[in-house]
């Protein structure tokens, strides 16, 4: 596949890994912000190519993981209502709310549908004028333009039966919050390439300046990730802190200005709670006043939600990189991908689910099988 296979070349990867090993003189903790990068690292075994000094910390960039419990419970309550068609991306269906997940709501008779694009939900609203169609609009800046477009189209067409439950989060405030945390161990960031394809990276120079932390815009294929790590390590070893773009075939400084204009129209920045982390000021988007009628939280006044996180779950500490998943007492015992207590154990991008498998790989290493 053009633009994919070239970035998966095993020999080039080995050469880049060798260069990283050569450059590395002491321990460095690097956070890959995006869950897509975590997925790529574990799926391809990139971490196994790195010297032991380099620690990759899985960041909070997994939308499934950071969507607040309260919003999940809200979604579950709306999805259970008669007459509602509740649309979501696939991997939200298994995320545990206080008592159940969307799969359970579906089995109990809720009309829950997996869609591949928010515009599919708009089409459903068109086809079913007698039903309320609600789309679960979550994610980072990457998924935001399509979600914004869906609301925009719905308003333009005057579709009164479409609404969106929005829980959008933003990357730069999260990086800022991590750097401000007293327990922070992160020394450099691999920024999420797809977020930057929308937003550009004009937001990063101030962060780099304030926290003196290298930020490298990084893609998702194995060679992209290795290139991001290589550039990060080079900066760290030289004592530099700069923004670098290692994903130039997709990302420009300005980003997609058309998308940004749409986002500015449809959404407004506000405080947002992150599951497991807590409230981060000005870290999310909600629908702007002009689109208030399309806000499902406003349209369906769901009351009486009392959230109940598992008292055992330490996903917040995991998401901030202060503990490894294995340090949680529930890890691998009460909490497995089959019986997740927290969202980080659900998605393959979630750090705990990733470690659950990774941990098994570590056991493998002890078996001294020839590679």
């Amino acid at each position: 596949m053009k633009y994919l296979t070239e970035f998966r070349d095993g020999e080039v990867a080995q050469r880049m890994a060798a260069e990283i090993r050569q450059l590395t003189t002491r321990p460095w903790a690097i956070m890959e912000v995006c869950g897509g990068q975590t997925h790529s690292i574990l799926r391809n075994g990139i971490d196994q190519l790195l010297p032991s000094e380099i620690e990759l910390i899985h960041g909070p960039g997994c939308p499934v993981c950071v969507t607040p419990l309260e919003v999940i419970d809200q979604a579950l309550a709306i999805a259970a209502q008669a007459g509602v068609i509740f649309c979501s991306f696939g991997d939200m269906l298994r995320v545990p709310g206080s008592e159940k997940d969307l799969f359970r709501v579906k089995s109990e008779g809720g009309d829950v549908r997996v869609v591949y694009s928010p515009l599919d939900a708009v089409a459903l609203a068109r086809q079913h004028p007698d039903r309320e169609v609600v789309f679960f609009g979550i994610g980072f800046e990457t998924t935001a333009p399509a979600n914004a477009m869906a609301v925009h189209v719905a308003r333009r067409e005057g579709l009164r039966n479409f609404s969106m439950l929005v829980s959008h989060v933003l990357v730069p405030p999260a990086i800022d919050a991590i750097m401000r945390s007293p327990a922070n161990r992160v020394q450099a960031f691999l920024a999420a390439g797809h977020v930057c394809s929308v937003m550009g990276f004009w937001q990063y120079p101030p962060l780099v300046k304030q926290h003196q932390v290298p930020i490298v815009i990084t893609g998702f294929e194995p060679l992209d990730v290795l290139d991001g790590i290589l550039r990060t390590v080079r900066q760290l070893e030289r004592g530099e802190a700069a923004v670098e773009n290692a994903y130039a075939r997709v990302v420009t400084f300005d980003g997609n200005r058309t998308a940004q204009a749409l986002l500015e129209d449809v959404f407004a920045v506000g405080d947002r709670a992150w599951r497991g982390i807590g409230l981060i000021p000005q870290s999310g988007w909600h629908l702007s006043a002009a689109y208030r009628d399309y806000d499902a939280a406003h349209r369906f006044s769901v009351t009486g939600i009392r959230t109940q996180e598992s008292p055992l779950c330490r996903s917040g500490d995991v998401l901030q990189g202060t503990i490894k998943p294995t340090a949680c007492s529930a890890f691998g015992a009460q909490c497995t991908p089959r019986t997740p207590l927290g969202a980080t154990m659900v998605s393959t991008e979630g750090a705990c689910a990733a470690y659950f498998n990774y941990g098994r790989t570590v056991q493998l290493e002890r078996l001294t099988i020839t590679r």
Partner: protein
Amino acid sequence: MSVATTPAAGAHPETGHITMDTWVCPLPLRDYPAIVMGHGGGGQLSAELVQHLFRPAFAPNATDALGDAAVLSLPGTRIACTTDTFVVQPLEFPGGTIGSLAVHGTVNDLAMVGARPIAITAGFVLEEGLPMAQLARIVRDMARAAHDAGVRIVCGDTKVVERGHGDGVYINTTGIGALAENLHIGPERARPGDVVLLSGHIGDHGMAIMSRREGLEFGSPIASDSAALHTLVADLLAAVPDVHVLRDPTRGGVAASLNEIAGDAGVGIAIDEQVVPVRATVRAACEVLGLDPLFVANEGKLLAIVPPECAERALEAMRAHALGTQAAIIGHVVADHPGMLVARTGLGARRVITMPIGEQLPRIC
């Protein structure tokens, strides 16, 4: 209208053998263009459905009365028996229908223990309102698949459920096959050193269904690989009588099948991801949806585990068969990491491939 004792439409005028190319659906059935509750009521409408649709399609030459049970003469004493229920949506998809899938799935389950398929039963649950023309297409496709596979559909049952209580058609099948005396194929026979072979491209069926179900279109259409594998198995067994394990990697894909075998045999399995055959379109579709081809369903592929000294012969035999031209050796059974499937990645690293928990869910980003 024809009755069951006369050759069906499409039957050869002299031999009476049905030729699927000329067979014409014996519609219309009375005045009903769609299934009504009465088609499951056991009265005239039920009888007509059997007389004019199922029987001409599945047993055009049968002259015996319709009894409560089919009477079969089976060779030998070792009989393989399997049952399966088909609920696929959509009912018709590129590369097949629920009808042909039911035949192939059942034939393949028999073939995976080395049995020669002999007879299949067919239980239909029809939803009120199902267009008769669509049912006829499905039945015809099912008859064609059985005919091509050389297996008879010997008895059946029809029930009708109210509109809204079914997805058009569900089909339950039971298959019976004959097994050679000395044949023992089973997951528990996988042992360290054995070689793992795969008969061809993976993921075709799952992605064909998903792209049709979700209205996704990819460069060129992906067709299901649905096919009966028993002749491929026969060729393989002729070349390598001591095949240890056979498995058709349906739901859960190659990942689930190999995890199951590793668990059942208490061995580890190591595969090389790079050599697992995947069509470019399927790979691209999986990339778009965030799916892993190793977890995607197949309906016309098999995994074979054979002793190392037989591996090359097994590969040759598979490649010589039309359904195995893309066969490949994808890995080995190992003594390490018992119960686990480990893949060598394109970067030369390794990853554990776990048993899928439920359906694979498309990722958000």
